[in-house]
């Protein structure tokens, strides 16, 4: 009998610790599938974030490093510059990449660092219990803006793709939403493109994944997908921002 579906080799046997319906799980699987398809597991070094994906080093079967909060792009830079023929990816949440690590991501992008960054935007700090993130939408309630984000108090959401797209360094920037079968296919294609770009020596690639946090959003997974499609993608439109 022909096997049509199996666990990607890019994943270990460890069980994910994510909440039910969380798109961190989905995105992990897509990265693993892409590593399988490109046959690069044995030449890849991953850099994990602080946040809900902090245990990612247990899930992926490539060599892997745990970075401190926000610094993954710099750690990835150190690895890539020492080992230019290896594939180096980093994975970061919005608290990690768009708040504490803003300088690191802007400058890795500015240098055109030949790495692939997967950016999970779920508009909140999942791991620490649902606090406000730089990407939290206006009016969105979090534990640190309990009456909803007020721009006069908390500022405005930061659009990372649009901001990085103003730089000359990046070779590829796309925002995707894996909330539908079509979105899933697009997300995987984007991740693969980001990896292929690196293999081709084209420089910095970033894929922003519009993600969810059903637990802290206090929604069912289905509701959370709807919220991404209706509310989030209005502020963070999906699409290709740079591809050169």
């Amino acid at each position, binding site marked *: 009998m022909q096997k049509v579906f199996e666990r990607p080799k890019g994943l270990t046997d460890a069980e994910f610790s994510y909440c039910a319906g969380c798109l961190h799980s989905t995105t992990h699987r897509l990265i693993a599938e892409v590593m399988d398809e490109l046959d690069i597991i044995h030449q890849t070094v991953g850099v994990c974030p602080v946040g809900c994906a902090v245990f990612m080093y247990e899930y992926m079967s490539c060599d892997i*490093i745990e970075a401190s909060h926000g610094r993954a792009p710099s750690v990835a830079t150190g690895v890539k510059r020492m080992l230019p023929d290896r594939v180096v990816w980093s994975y970061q949440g919005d608290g990690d990449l768009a708040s504490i690590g803003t300088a690191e991501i802007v400058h890795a992008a500015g240098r055109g660092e030949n790495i692939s960054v997967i950016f999970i935007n779920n508009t909140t700090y999942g791991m620490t219990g649902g606090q406000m993130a730089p990407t939290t939408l206006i009016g969105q309630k979090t534990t640190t803006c309990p009456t909803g984000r007020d721009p006069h108090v908390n500022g405005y959401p930061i659009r990372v793709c649009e901001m990085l797209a103003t730089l000359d360094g990046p070779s590829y920037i796309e925002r995707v939403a894996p909330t539908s079968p079509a979105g899933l296919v697009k997300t995987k294609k984007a991740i693969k493109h980001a990896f292929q770009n690196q293999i081709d020596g084209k420089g910095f690639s970033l894929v922003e994944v519009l993600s969810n946090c059903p637990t802290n959003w206090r929604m069912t997974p289905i509701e959370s997908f709807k919220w991404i499609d209706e509310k989030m993608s209005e502020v963070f439109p999906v699409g290709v921002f740079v591809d050169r």
Partner: protein
Amino acid sequence: MATKKLTKGNAALCYGAIAAGCKAFFGYPITPQNEVPEYMSELMPANGGVFIQAESEVSAINMVYGAACAGKRAMTSSSSPGVSLKQEGISYIAACELPCVIVNVQRGGPGLGNTLPGQADYFQATKGGGHGDYKLLVLAPWSVQECYEFMPLAFDLADKYRNPAMILMDAIIGQMLEPLDMHDNFDIVEYPKPWATNGARGRAHNIINSLWIDPEVLEGLNQRIQAKYAAAQMHEVRFKEYQTEDAELVMVAYGCPARICRSVVDMARDEGMKVGLLRPITLFPFPTLQIADLAKDGKRFLVVEMNCGQMVEDVRLAVNGASEVEFYGRSGGAVPTPTEILNEVRARFGKPPVVSHYSSRKETAN
């Protein structure tokens, strides 16, 4: 082949790093160590390595972290405020048991302070500096030659103990010119690094991590790294003694003040006062036993530092009440003059002060 060349301390560090087989330098400008990134921007690529001027010290130390994960010899250099910013990364590097070298050419502090020589980062360097129970292996050169010699030594100790090593010096050691004997007879050991995350290529995947949820596992890490520090305390203590044998008063100083104190030993001896000098070369591991031995002979101590009293605490711990330990320090970038220190010595031998032909204020005025 050996060549003699008039060299700055900061430049000597760079030549030493090349001799050590350093493959990466990541840094950010700050006075008084700017020559290090400047030289490295040329020397690294010319010797098959990588130089990046990072966007901040925070980023630079994390690049070092990445390069060390890749199994390569990597370093960074900074001065006091910049080293404070590196502390987060240094703690992670120590926790992941990665080797690397960090240079701190200290300036006057706290805060922005000034760019004059200081030694006020002693506590930060020798007691951990960042969060958690860890230590750095700390070497303190007192000459341009030692800046050169200590780089390969620091890289070797870092690899051997899988722990960050620090070169702790002050602005004078970094900025002064001396003849440097550039030899290449270093014993560079190639340490196998089977733990490196450099692409699995047939082996099981490597993980470099410092998150350990289980308290017993994390305690295990702490016990393992503490055992390394105990081993370093047994095998890696380095120091130099000058005229301590018959001394009644032993000065303890490192770096620039140690040079001044050596002159003071000679001046005091000319006047018939039995004075000696013990110069710790490794600030961690500290020459505790050697100082304890001197104290057992009843020798008294005068610790001289360019701070308000930091290393003096380690000397007091070593002496453990067996004899008297006193302190003389200048801070804020002021450098003690030989006469100033001689007067401290004279006071302890019951002699009146001599008048200085130049004051320290004049010396630092420009």
